[in-house]
Structures are given as C-alpha cells and as structure tokens.
C-alpha cells in the first residue's frame, strides 16, 4: 500500500528536481544575468561624466598641417567610435603592451603581445562558440550559424568534426590560467574571483567539448530543451546526461555570477571615459551636470588686499573699483 503511494511520489519528486535543474536554474540565472547587467550599466549611466578626460595616445588635432592621430586621439565623435571599435574588437590598448627589462644597467623595452594574443583568441573564439550555440535555440537554424559551424569545422578531424574555436578557446583559457599561476606578479594580484571566473569558463568549455567528442549527448533532446526555454514552454526531455547537466549548471552559474564580478567589463569597456570621448575639450563646450559654485578669491577681494602694493608697483587698478 505504502509502495503504491511512494513510487509515484518519488517519481514526481525526481521529475520536479529535474525540472528545477534543467528549467528553473537556467531561467533564474538568465534573469539574473540580464537584470543584473542592466542594473550595472544603468548604474554606470546614472553617474555622469563631469569632465572630458580621454587618455590621449597620439597627436592631437591642432594646426591643420600637423598630422593628427584620428584613432588614438580622436577629436570627433566618429573618431571616438573608431577608437572604441579598435578597442573592443581588436584590443588596441593591450596591443601596445611591452615589457620593461634591464640590460646593461638600463631599461629596454621589448614586445609583449602574448597577453593580447591570448585575450583576443579567447574572446573571439568565445563569441564564435556562443553564436554557434544558436543552432540549439532557434528553429529553423539561421543560415549564418550553419555557415559559421561549417567554417569552424573546416578541417575534418574526427566525427563530429573538430571545431577549431573549441581548440582555440581551451588553449587560450589554459594560457590565461597558467599565466596567473606561473607569474609571481600575477599570482600576487590575482584574487579568488579571477580564478573562479577562469575555472568556470574552463569547466564550461571542457564539458561542452566532452559532450561533443567524448561522452556524446542527444542533440535533439538538448535542442528541444533549449527551444522550450527560449519560447517559455519548458519541456524536460529524457536523454540529456549528467555531463550536459554540469555544462548547463556551469553556464547558469557563469551567467548569474556575471553581473556581480569583474566579468561586467564586457559592458564597462564601452563606457570608459578615458576611451570613448573625443579629445575636443577646447573645441566644444562640455557641461558638468553637477557643477556648483565654489568660493573663490575674487579680483575685488584680491585688489583690496594688495591695493598698496599694486599702487606702489604702478600696476593699474580696476577702474570700476577705483574711486
């Protein structure tokens, strides 16, 4: 008798548990991600930029015959957009990186573009991977997603074919992690959150790779789940294994963690006032919204204070005040 009650109960409990894991958590995480990120960006936006403080990394626009650096020191909005594009798409500033080294008792500066390369490789391959995942969320699969997948798996290695972006992302993440562990200086500045973010990303990538090339997963089931999530008609399909579950939970953790960690640099990079402003402070008036009057030492006060000395030195006094 008890068994008759217990079995369906347990089954439904298991079903509910699975529902929470496969549906509840992703929804919550994504909501936190979107809400949190918006909250962060709005928070930044609410603080004004009182002064125009671009870091100028090249010649200013001044006399017409002097060649200016329109992208490293833009004087127009368009130039600033260009500068931001270089920054966001190609990591311009990191590209400048060099290493100070002592030789013959003097500093010499050598190239150091590994970080730039690693960061570029990581971010771009991550973007490619994210876009490729659209094949699971959209039905029918957009042509550009299919095309990306095709190019990404151009080299026929294994079945399914190896995605180059997967290799790149793993190598780049490994590099980013190892440099933190290897380099004493970076180990010194690294905090828990630095490792946490890297490990989450690495874990997510590894489980993803494992599903594709190792343990396998029923892609159709995964896609049904994904479409269900995307269209608010969640289904809990059978056949998604434990690896997928870990993958999903890690992604959820990453999404939920995102707004509250350094990962918000994704949004922040666009708002950096040392980069996204045109260096036109002397060309155009810029208003500080909270500019308030301050106590100054006015000319009248000053003249009053130094009247004798001004007279003695025959420096002309202000006629308006001079009686």
């Amino acid at each position: 008798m008890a068994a008759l009650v217990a079995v369906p109960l347990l089954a439904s409990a298991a079903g509910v548990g699975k529902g929470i894991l496969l549906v509840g958590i992703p929804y919550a995480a994504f909501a936190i991600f979107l809400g949190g990120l918006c909250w962060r960006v709005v928070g930044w936006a609410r603080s004004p930029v009182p002064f125009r403080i671009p870091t100028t990394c090249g010649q200013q626009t001044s006399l017409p015959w002097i060649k200016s650096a329109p992208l490293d020191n833009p004087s127009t909005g368009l130039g600033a957009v260009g500068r931001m594009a270089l920054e966001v798409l190609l990591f311009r500033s990191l590209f400048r990186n060099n290493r100070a080294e002592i030789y013959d008792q003097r500093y010499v500066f050598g190239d150091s573009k590994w970080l730039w390369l690693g960061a570029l490789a990581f971010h771009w391959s991550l973007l490619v991977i994210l876009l490729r995942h659209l094949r699971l969320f959209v039905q029918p699969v957009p042509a550009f997603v299919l095309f990306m997948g095709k190019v990404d798996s151009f080299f026929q290695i294994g079945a399914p074919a190896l995605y180059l972006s997967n290799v790149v992302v793993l190598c780049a993440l490994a590099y980013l992690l190892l440099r933190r562990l290897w380099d004493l200086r970076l180990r010194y500045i690294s905090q828990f959150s630095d490792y946490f973010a890297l490990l989450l990303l690495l874990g997510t990538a590894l489980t993803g790779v494992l599903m594709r090339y190792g343990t396998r997963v029923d892609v159709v089931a995964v896609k049904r789940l994904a479409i269900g999530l995307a269209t608010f008609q969640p289904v809990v399909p059978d056949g998604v294994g434990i690896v997928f579950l870990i993958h999903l939970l890690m992604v959820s953790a990453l999404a939920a963690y995102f707004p509250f960690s350094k990962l918000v640099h994704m949004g922040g990079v666009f708002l950096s006032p040392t980069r996204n402003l045109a260096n036109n402070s002397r060309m155009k008036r810029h208003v500080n919204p909270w500019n308030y009057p301050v106590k100054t030492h006015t000319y009248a006060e000053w003249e009053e204070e130094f009247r004798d000395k001004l007279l003695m030195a025959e420096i002309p006094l202000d006629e308006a005040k001079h009686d």
Partner: protein
Amino acid sequence: MTDNRHKIEQVPPRSDWRDPAVEFRKGTYCHSAGAKYVEALGLPNPRDWNPADADWKLPSDWKEIILNGMAERLERFRSFKLFMDVCVRCGACADKCHYYLGSNDPKNMPMVRAELIRSVYRRYFTPAGRVFGSLAGGRELTEEVIKEWFYYFYQCSECRRCSVFCPFGIDTAEITMIGRELLNLLGCNINWITKPAADCFRVGNHLGIQPHAFKDSLEFAADELEEVTGIRVDIPIGKKGAEVLFVMPSADFFATPHYYTLLGYMSLFHEIGLDFTYSAYASEGGNFGLFTSHEMMKRLNAKIYDEARRLGVKWILGGECGHMWRVLHQYMETMNGPADFLEAPVSPVTGTRFENARSTSMVHICEFTADLLYHDKITLDPKRNDKWSVTYHDSCNPARGMGLLEEPRYVLKRACNNFHEMPENTIREQTFCCGSGSGLGTDENLEMRLRGGFPRANAVRHVREKHGVNLLSCICAIDKATMPTLLEYWVPGVEVAGVHELLGNALVMTGEKERTTNLRGEPLQAAVPETSPAEVVHG
C-alpha cells in the same frame, strides 16, 4: 646580524596585498600639511599631525566621512564608479608604472594601488562584497587602510601612463585623485601641495609672490634680456584691452631653469609685436588643486577667466607647464566656462584661427610658436644652440591628457641643429614621468623621487651615451624643477631647459646686438670639449 635572517632564503613570506600595514620611512613620504594652510583654504579638519605617528588624530566619525565621501563620488564620477568595477587584473599595467619599476614595491603596481580603494568599495558598495566579504575581494576599512592610502596615493604621480596600456582605459590618476579627495576630507593633506595652493588662492601664485615683487621679477628679467640682446622689452601687467592674456606657471619667474624660458617668451612676444598682458592676479597657471580635489582645482582656476573677462582680452595664451595644461585643456571651460566673453583665438601675426581652441579660447605657446614658424614669421639661427645636443622629454600631462606631441618637436627641430629622440617606448604617449609630478616634488620625498625617476633617467642616459645629449628640453614646470636633480644623480652632465628657452636663444630679433651669450649668460659655444660618451659614469 642574526641567524634567523637565513630564513629569507626559504619560502618567501606568503603575505597578501590585503595587509594594509605600511612603514613610513624617511625619504619616502611627504610631510603633512600644516594646520594654518589647511585652514586658509577652508578645508576640513585642520590639525598638526605627522604621518609617521601612530595616532593621526582622525575625526571620530572618520569612517562615515570616507564612506559618505565615496558614495558621493561614485554618483558624481562615472570614471570612479566604472574603474572600481571593470578591472580584470590582467597585469598589463604592472610594469608601466615608473614607481613600480623604480622600487619593485608590488603595491606600486597600478592595479594594486587601485585595489587599495577598490577593496573597500567592494566591501561597502557591492552586493557581492557585502555578502561574501574578502572572498569577493572586499576589505574592512580601518585606520591602517587610511594610512596605506596616504602612503600609496602620494606615491602616484598621476601621470596616466598605465591608462595608455589598460584594455579598459582605467586611469589610476582618476582613482588617486578621488583617493586624495577622500583623505582631504579627513584633513590628511601634504604640505607641499597645500601650502602652494593656499598661497596661490590668496596671493595669486604658488610662492605667494606679491604683485610688486612679481613686477620686479619681470623687470629683472627684462634687464637680463637686454643684457643679452641689447633690446628692451615691455612688461605690460594688467593692461586692459590687450588682445591676449598671457598666463604661465609661476616658477617661470622665480626659479631656474624656468626663468630662461620666460626670457624666451619675452623676446618672442617683443619680436612679433604681440599685444598682450601679464596678470598679477592670475599670476599662476599651475594648479595644485588638481592634486587636491576637483573643487580646489576649480577654485584656483577661476582666476584666469575672471581676469580675462576683467581685462577684456580676446583670448588667452598659456606658457609651458604640464599639469596646468591638463587643467586648462580638459577641465577649465567645463568648470568655469562658458568663455563666451572671449573670441576664438586668432594669431595676430599669421591670421591662423586656432580651431582646436575655439571654445576654451586658450592656446598653448607651443601651438602658437609652431604656427609662427610654419608661416616663417620669425627668423631663427639654430647655430646659437649648437653647444647643446638636445633631447625632448614629453611631459605626462600634455602628452597623455592633451596630445601635444608634435608642436614642441617642430619648434625644437627648427631651433636646434642637434636633436635626438629617446627610445620610442619612453616618449610621446608612452613617456615616463619625472617621478615628481602631482605634488610629490618635495625635498623630504627625494629618495622616492629619485627611484620613481629612474626609468626616465635611464632613457636619458641612453641618448647621452649614444648621441652625447647634454640638454633635456621639456614643457613642464615641475620637470624643470625636478629633472635637474634627477639627472644630476643618475646622468650627470645633462641640463634641463624649456623649449622656449632654446627658441629664445635662436630667435633673431630685429635690431638686436651681436649675441655672445645665450639666455643663460653662458658663451654661445661650449668652452671645453664635450665629455665623450665613454666617460660618462655608469650609474
């Protein structure tokens, strides 16, 4: 020597940057500001105290003051708020800081310097930090933290070099400026900034030189110039209706080698017949408010526009000064504008309209002179500078807060025959600070300055050995004050001059007598042969 010192060889102490303990050692920190100057400026909590003391006599509600101050600034400055959030600790900035390179003190790495305040921000202003505390990188705000702030925020010369390399453009100068503002709220100022600021506020310039002495000083300069050139120049002070108001850093009229630059301006203005005036009220272009607080910056800067309005000039010309130009370029009009009583600057000699300054109406002297030279309005005899082999040091603020890179070079290349650039990673936007910027150029801080200036001195030594450079030119008053010291220690034999001193040397003035000396009163040609590079002592 005790035996326990052997332990050093084993595993180094696994300490953490979160440990705020700092030791104030002589030669590495600046003296605290005297109460009377703090009071004179109406700043909070004036008192006599000493950083090396255990008790800093902080107000009882100091913690509240700091946290409220932070909250207020987070709302006012997107830069501050953003820079607190987006650092990923990639490490690109670490070896870009001259103080870090000179001292190897890990807390001088820019991201760690910022982390000193960021950790407090996390603990008190972010949800993650409030809940997870140190796990989320948060740190309790204690008196030790305040002391650490004082120590390290006054070991940053706000040169912005790290900002050039940061992938997010995080500017440690912004963070340090806010940090100093917060310390300011507790009355923790340094004397070398507060005293000049107080003098500047009251009298008009950093040294508190009063109007008559100011005039004497300029007259004295005119005498000197007459001796060299045989020409007597005018000294218009407070001349109403002049076309141009000329503002320079006050060091130009009381310190050397700045002073020779003043002689250069004077001869130039005379030669082109510029209708201009000096001002005794706005006799300071420099602005130590930049090193104190945004408010103080505004208060000190107000004089320039006020004076321009009072005198009815058309536009303003600014002399050679670094941080002065950061303020004039990036802050002045926003703070104290609009400058609608002025006109867009037009060179009366060439007719060039300075479009890049049309709103603020203030032109850099190098822009002005470069324009003159480009249009061949003045004649130069660069041979008069032949005793010098010149290099150019980009001052941080004009380089990274303005982008004034080519104009001074253009002037220099026309004014001297021997010009050599320092290695490219140490000039232009990548220029190294003299180590004494942002109000750190004080005597008691000498050791720290010498360390901080080490990378710059290194680059100078490079050109000294390679090209026999014996003169470093620059356009910054702080450079002119502290570089001679720096170079005397690390690269003996290299002197310092302003760009317009070299211009003044080379300028062929109408009706001048045969020049036998340069503006310094030294014979035009080197009396003794140059020290050969090989003889330069390795340091």
